[in-house]
């Protein structure tokens, strides 16, 4: 089969138009399914910029439902999180590339972790525990499991409700909880997921009991009996 010059050009344009990571993240955010369009764990800066714009839009929609004043969107963190989960899924599905230069793929988040960072990163990171569980299921000693655990450790908000063993940094949490919006969101998610392990931490437990008030028994009876 021979292609005319015109057809070749069209193909090239289409190829360059196809933004794999954006498609994956978009599909993930809209339907909850993870679809990979390529085997190559590769992303370009342009693609990431588009992902950032998409996530900014998503954050704006979601923050409509955030209590108090939602923190400003942190694009850096959102892009970093999207990249992390994209690579995690890639390495879960196939490992064509031998894991020799891991830092290239899974860098810990470089900036300071703030409520804004946590909420922005959570747009994609909230799906990471599912990949983490899947990896752990295959081989709990895998290098990727440990790497992801490190990441979830610094973003406990994304890990709520998945029964993952984490050493939550309480000091970090206390300073983050000074942000009203984040404190509410965090506590709401602990209650929604009924994550009894999280309430081992004093500050979370206090906030949960404030939220439940006198209705604790009807909303979450295990919290009354076990804590």
């Amino acid at each position: 089969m021979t292609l005319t010059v015109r057809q070749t050009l069209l193909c090239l344009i289409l190829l360059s138009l196809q933004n794999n990571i954006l498609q994956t993240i978009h599909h993930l955010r809209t339907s909850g399914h993870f679809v990979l369009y390529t085997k190559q764990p590769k992303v370009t800066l342009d693609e990431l910029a588009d992902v950032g714009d998409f996530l900014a839009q998503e954050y704006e929609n979601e923050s409509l439902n955030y209590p108090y004043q939602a923190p400003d969107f942190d694009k850096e963190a959102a892009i970093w999180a999207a990249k992390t989960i994209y690579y995690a899924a890639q390495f879960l599905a196939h490992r064509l590339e031998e894991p020799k230069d891991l830092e290239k793929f899974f860098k810990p988040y470089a900036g300071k972790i703030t409520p804004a960072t946590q909420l922005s990163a959570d747009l994609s990171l909230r799906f990471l525990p599912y990949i983490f569980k899947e990896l752990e299921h295959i081989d709990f000693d895998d290098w990727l499991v440990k790497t992801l655990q490190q990441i979830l450790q610094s973003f406990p908000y994304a890990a709520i409700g998945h029964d993952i063993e984490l050493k939550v940094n309480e000091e970090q949490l206390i300073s983050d909880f000074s942000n009203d919006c984040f404190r509410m969101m965090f506590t709401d998610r602990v209650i929604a997921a009924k994550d009894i392990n999280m309430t081992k931490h004093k500050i979370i437990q206090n906030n949960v009991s404030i939220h439940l008030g006198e209705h604790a028994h009807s909303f979450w009876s295990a919290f009354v009996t076990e804590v």
Partner: protein
Amino acid sequence: MEKDLTQNITEYWLRLPIKYKDKLAQIRVWQSLRVAVDNDDIWIRGIAPAQLHSPEIRSIPFKKIYFQRENALFFLEGNLPEERLKTSWVWSPIHTFLPVTLPDYNFNFFGIKEKIIFRIVPSTVEREAAAQWVDMDVLKNSILKTPAVRLQPVQWTIVNKKALLIGIPLLALPGTTLWKHQNFLLPAGFDFEYPELSTYFQKKMTQSDNELIIINNNSTYFTISTTDFQSLSISSFRLSQ
């Protein structure tokens, strides 16, 4: 020690001269009672211990209360047998023994055009509130601080610039509360003037089952379709501003 005769009694007997038969009308609805006639007396058995001290029984005059032990009947709190059981007694349920006769139809009655007006009246019966009216300003100030778990069961809509919240547990906000009966939402502290007619009124007032009838304090009402309610969330509130 002698055993107490009144131990383990599950039913009491009642004896009444037959000329006072009409006095039994008030206990006719108790399905467990059975009646037999013996000369000039009516015998009733099947009176439960709990029913014995009820006003219905206590208000029957000229009665004698017995309890049964083996083949004899003893007076209540008596120690000696008074009567022996007779095999000739024929027992029948009380509602067949005392049939109801309806008054004759009055063909000369011309009051059929009279109407009953729907009204609510103050009531002292305590009801659980199921909905509340809240000022939009009050809601605006508090909703951002309300945990998601409290918002979840609540549905809301806006009527005349006031928010109507439905769902238990209600939010702890100042506002007037309503209680629910069938599809009616009545102001707390009020009840129907004729509660028995509520089903008929509901049929008259609504076209379909998924309409709520909200009654104001002055007995006027309006209906809202349940599809007009949204679940209450911060985003739904912000979008309604």
